[in-house]
């Protein structure tokens, strides 16, 4: 187990290195690095000075090395717009995004698994068919437009819920969160619903397909032959088996949620790091873009690792320590 963990961490470092190289080449070499790192308002002398100061007159591999060294020290450059450290800016915005993504994922799980289970158990029933039709809609609806429609109905027409911002936040371990106040919840409901929609559809489909497959398995028939109640057959034998792919997808989709929060945050003016990215692209604030990218790659790597660990906990057939090939 420990060997596995160490190996996985080493792998992660390699992936991160490769990604940093791609980001470096993509953003620093394709674009003009001077434009990225120096304010466009600078004059020629300042530019020359800055080029030298930043080591941009050095060969490419040397520049990458310097970039890496700075990155290791947690220095991913300064934002032009906010004139603070890019990394710091991202970390300030990150809790809002994580909160939104977590609540959205919870919505999707809490609603999606029971609905999918129902549709899987009664695939031919009217309710089962309706659930499936709804999930097709969930896949097809463009997120941003659904966000607008939610605002139209619940904020404008009914006036029940606010359409933008985080609302009142309280500090939890020094991090501002919305979910502990009523006002925060009122602000959270619409964007979280919006963000959850795609995953809700995904959960329904995944649970339904898994349930239908599990029901055909001999172990379900054997469990019934043992005289177990339906609740136990479904709640233990079926659910434990379909939980494995579901947990995997939940983990992987959490990363996707953080990425797709970019859209939802823009619609609902949610002050997370996704909105920061869009603003940064609009203002060509490239250090922030680079920082966002490296942070999100790291996040993805961490999520993948957690998913793998969870997977092995759920599926006894997977022995992490043994997969040494």
């Amino acid at each position, binding site marked *: 187990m420990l060997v596995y963990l160490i190996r996985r961490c080493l792998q992660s470092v390699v992936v991160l290195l490769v990604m940093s190289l791609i980001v470096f080449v993509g953003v620093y070499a394709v674009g003009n690095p001077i434009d990225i790192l120096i304010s466009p308002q600078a004059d020629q002398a300042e530019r020359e000075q800055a080029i030298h100061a930043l080591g941009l007159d050095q060969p490419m591999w040397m520049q990458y090395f310097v970039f890496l060294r700075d990155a290791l020290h947690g220095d991913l450059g300064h934002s032009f717009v906010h004139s603070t450290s890019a990394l710091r800016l991202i970390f300030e915005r990150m809790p809002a995004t994580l909160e939104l993504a977590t609540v959205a994922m919870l919505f999707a799980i809490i609603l999606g698994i029971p609905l999918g289970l129902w549709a899987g158990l009664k695939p031919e029933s009217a309710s089962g068919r309706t659930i499936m039709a709804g999930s097709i809609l969930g896949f097809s609806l463009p997120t941003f437009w659904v966000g607008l429609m939610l605002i139209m109905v619940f904020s404008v027409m009914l006036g029940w819920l606010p359409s933008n911002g985080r609302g009142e936040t309280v500090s939890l371990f020094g991090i501002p969160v919305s979910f502990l106040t009523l006002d925060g919840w009122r602000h959270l409901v619409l964007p979280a619903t919006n963000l959850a929609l795609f995953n809700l559809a995904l959960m329904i489909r995944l649970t339904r397909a898994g349930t239908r497959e599990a029901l055909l398995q001999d172990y379900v028939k054997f469990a019934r*032959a*043992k005289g177990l*109640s339906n609740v136990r057959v479904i709640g233990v034998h079926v659910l434990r*088996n379909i939980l494995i792919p579901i947990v995997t997808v939940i983990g992987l989709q959490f990363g996707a949620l953080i990425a797709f929060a970019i859209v939802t945050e823009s619609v609902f003016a949610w002050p997370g790091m996704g909105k920061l990215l869009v603003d940064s692209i609009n203002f060509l604030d490239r250090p922030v873009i680079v920082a966002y990218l490296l942070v999100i790659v790291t996040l993805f790597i961490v999520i993948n690792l957690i998913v793998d660990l969870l997977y092995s906990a759920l599926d*006894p057939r997977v022995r992490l320590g043994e997969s040494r090939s």
Partner: protein
Amino acid sequence: MSADPVAVSQGTAPATAPAAPLLAVLGLRTHFFTKAGVVKAVDDVSFTLAAGEVLGLVGESGSGKSMTGYSLMGLIDPPGRVVEGSIRLKGQELTTLPAEKMRALRGDRLAMIFQDPMMTLNPVLRIDHQMTEAILAHRDVGRAAALARAREALVRVGIASPDARLKAYPHQFSGGMRQRVAIAIALLNEPDVIIADEPTTALDVTIQGQILYEVQKLARETGTALIWITHDLSVIAGLADRIFVMYAGKIVEEGTTEDVIDHPAHPYTRGLLDSVPSRNPYGQRLKQIPGMTPSLIALPRGCAFRERCARADAMCEAMPETTAAPSGRAGHVMRCFHPLA
């Protein structure tokens, strides 16, 4: 419920059927209502089973033998359903039993073992869990008592170091071991009847022999009756007291093992016997039954076997009734107009 006199099926002579059979099946029909038509998977099946008796149910794939087993267990899922007939266990009618009462019987009085041991145990649950839940579903005992009983059952089916094995997952067992575990689970509540649906087909020949021997021994010890479903007459020959041969949802021949093996009356039984390798002289070509099992949706009129049968003639376009076999032995009956002498 008191054991009222159960109508003995027309084909079963009173001499072999005990006065109050443990299990009496009469005119059982299980149909599947599919879009393509009605599939008569089990079509008028009747038999009785005495306590401690071993019954061989033989037939090709699709002959309805497994569906007969599922019908007894009340495990027929839509679009299928038992449409007619009666199943009485110790006089209690099962076909009209409420779902919850039927559940209480399953795994308690009636147990079932399946064909593929790789598939019957839940891959993500530990053996102890899968065993104790079968006890806790029927007995009001504590977890520790259930665990002790599970351990005892494992010992009984010949599994070494049961304590370690209880804590293991199915993938840590070999195929033969898994089938032993499945048998141990079936034995847990000391049922009256165990229905074994080809439990050795998926196993190595050597393991097959061991399992056969042990199941037979356990059934004798506990007085459990066995319904052994198989397509392989050679498997059942040394095990069963009586053999029922099924074809296209109907029992086409039944009798004691000796009668059916040594004096087969139905051409289909003969065909099955001829295709068993060990019964044929070395170097001689195995005989195969020509053709395939017919589709149960579009069964030919009359005897379902006639299109594959060398002895068939115009007479066979009517369905033969169950009559005494030419052997003249009590209880040896078949459905054929042109039986082998």
